């Protein structure tokens, strides 16, 4: 088992003005489950492919364990890949699919048999060993692709959106199974997805990427509660964080955030930071998560200085909770997540209080989180 270290990794394609991956530095611990997440084109798959050896590294060093592997062929890196486009070998049955890599490496028949059957048991596909891929369902094929990787007992698993071809229900199921499996096998795993729910539920740590750059690397909790910039704040969390453009003023010793339909007090702790960084009188962007906008009377009573009035444009009742699409707070629609029993309907006028201790503020130019930088 081994960690993976990326030092100053770049990827440049010929004829392209800018790098696809810029200065990626990562130290992935042994047994860690690390997720690379970001929108299409952010460089996450390219980074994974460089680790796999499927793309040449333009600049920088890649270590698997203590070994520098920049020029080592994929088959010699002691990794196993499960990619989105995993292609099972259609002319071989499940057993043969899983055994093939071991056969090439001249493992003894008895050892191959042992590994294949053990992996099949873990994945609950023992009854499918004689079948060909054409006779398997999507979920079963996914398990065989995992099985092919497991039998190799590699130092590192590399997975690139392995669940994206499955329906939502199966995806949820397989997500949990992959997490359990990698923990059981105690193998370092690097997992690429652009589903932030997958990232948040599976990763020990998450790397958020955008335009080839790493935005932030942190635990799911850290990313959610302490996003370093607007991109990370907006990308992580569903529904997304709300952003309200406004201005900070100071009146009678109180720092207030003012925007269209908003005039609320900033708690003293945050106010002190804003003062020290010279943001009083400047335009900033307030970030507030839907679950931090409250309509319960008890919260309204406890937080009279953070109340806003709004109109419910659309109320989506999911049963246990309700999403309110609100007008009147800033210039854009704001989403609040409230209790499903709130009884609110489309067109209703509502009073809400913002939990200012949980809000974030971002610099208008740099989009950096004022409180995290």
């Amino acid at each position: 088992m081994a960690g993976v270290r990326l030092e100053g990794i770049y990827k440049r394609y010929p004829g392209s003005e800018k790098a696809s991956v810029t200065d990626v530095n990562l130290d992935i611990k042994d047994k860690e489950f690390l997720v690379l997440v970001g929108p299409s084109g952010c460089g996450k798959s390219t980074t994974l492919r460089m680790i796999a050896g499927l793309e040449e590294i333009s600049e920088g060093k890649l270590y698997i364990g203590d070994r520098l592997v920049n020029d080592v062929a994929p088959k010699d890196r002691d990794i196993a890949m499960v990619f989105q486009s995993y292609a099972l070998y259609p002319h071989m049955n499940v057993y043969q699919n899983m055994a093939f890599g071991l056969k090439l490496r001249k493992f003894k028949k008895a050892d191959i048999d042992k590994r294949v059957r053990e992996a099949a048991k873990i994945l609950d596909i023992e009854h499918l060993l004689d079948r060909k891929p054409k006779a398997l369902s999507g979920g079963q094929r996914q398990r065989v692709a995992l099985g092919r990787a497991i039998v190799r007992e590699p130092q590192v698993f590399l997975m690139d959106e392995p669940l994206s071809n499955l329906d939502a229900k199966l995806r949820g199921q397989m997500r949990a199974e992959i997490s359990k499996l990698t923990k059981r096998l105690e193998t370092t795993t690097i997992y690429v997805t652009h589903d932030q729910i997958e990232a948040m539920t599976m990763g020990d740590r998450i790397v958020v990427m955008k335009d080839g750059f790493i935005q932030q690397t942190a635990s799911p909790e850290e990313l959610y509660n302490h996003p370093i910039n607007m991109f990370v704040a907006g990308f992580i969390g569903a529904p997304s964080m709300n952003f309200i453009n406004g201005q900070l003023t100071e009146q009678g010793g109180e720092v207030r955030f003012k925007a269209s339909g908003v005039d609320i007090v900033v708690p003293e702790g945050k106010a002190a930071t804003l003062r020290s960084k010279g943001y009083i009188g400047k335009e900033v962007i307030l970030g507030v998560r839907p679950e931090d906008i409250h309509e319960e009377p008890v919260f309204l009573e406890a937080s009279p200085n953070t109340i806003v009035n709004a109109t419910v444009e659309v109320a989506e009742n999911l049963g246990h909770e309700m999403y309110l699409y609100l007008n009147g707070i800033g210039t854009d629609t704001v989403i609040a997540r409230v209790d499903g029993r709130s009884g609110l309907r489309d067109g209703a006028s509502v009073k809400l209080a913002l939990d200012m201790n949980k809000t974030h503020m971002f610099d208008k130019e740099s989009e950096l989180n004022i409180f995290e930088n």
Partner: protein
Amino acid sequence: MHMGKTDWIKQLQHILDCPIEAATMSAHEWSEIARQDHGAASQSGSPHPPILPGQHAVSDGRLRFVADVSPKGITVFEIDRRALSDKELELIGWTLRLIGSKGDPKAETPISDSEMYARKLGDWIQKQLESDEPAYSLPDHLIAGTRMYHEMIPFLLVTEQNSPKGGAYGELEKLLRSFLSEDILLIPLKSQEWLIWGPASLLRDEEADTYESAEEETVEDSLASIVSALHEMLASEWLGECHLAVAHPAMPAQGIVETTILLRETINLGRKFHVGTNIHLPWMLQLERLLNAIPEAQRAKYLEQSLKRTDLFVESEMLATLETFFALDCNVSETAKKLYIHRNTLLYRLDKLKQETGLDVRQFRDAVLVKIILLLYKVTKRN
């Protein structure tokens, strides 16, 4: 061998005090002599064991040593067996092996009969491709066995990374034999380019009929899944990333040149129009083939006339949106799901495109135009 042949012979003659003759023979001839001397059981499981300097065999009282192996043939030294003791025989073999292993780094590694034949075939195909009047049927002397008259599945493999020095053919051939499990034909064309013929039996899958399988596969579906599997195997078990094309089964004896032309064109089109894809299917590139035939000046003129704004297509988000939209048959819900965006977000993007270009991809006519424009834009930008 880096030492002159004549020098070697003279020196050895002097040491052993007996006449030595040098000769050249084909790998097949050597294999026959070795087989007769050592017997079939002593050969490795492979039908074409590697020929290495230092190997020896006796035939008709003459002892022959392999001194050198090259594509041109096997250089052997012939000595009267009675002139050597067992120890001298061993010593000469050892010395030749040593020299062979420390020899000219540019020297070819030992090649098998099948490789020599494949190279001849590859050279012939290359000649036809460069000729103004190519021959399309294989000449008799290049037809080995009856399999050339049976339908086989042709693949073209183009590797991105340099093959390891020496032995690349043997290694790849062995890998393909393990994977396809049958007789394959591997023909090296240009450097990093290989023509592979695989058994047509890959398309026949009686066992799947035993179980309830997915809807019936077309030949193209089967070929696509075979080539995808081959790509995956080569990427993870050989050198890494590569490009692969596959065509419908054909008879090598009659269609080898035509098939190679088709496969080369397929990979070229695929690389030009679909950067980032590695598997190229000729039946999926018909529009690309047509557009590629349009002169560049005309392409640029059409683009200029069609679009109010071309820089919208530079935005990776819009490009990804449109490509996904078209790949999912213009289905808005599925596209939104695939892109992990809200349906309204997708509609906003499509509305933005309509506003900027006047083209609404939700209308069939406009979708066709945008598809063509996208392809033309990509290839024009690349040029």
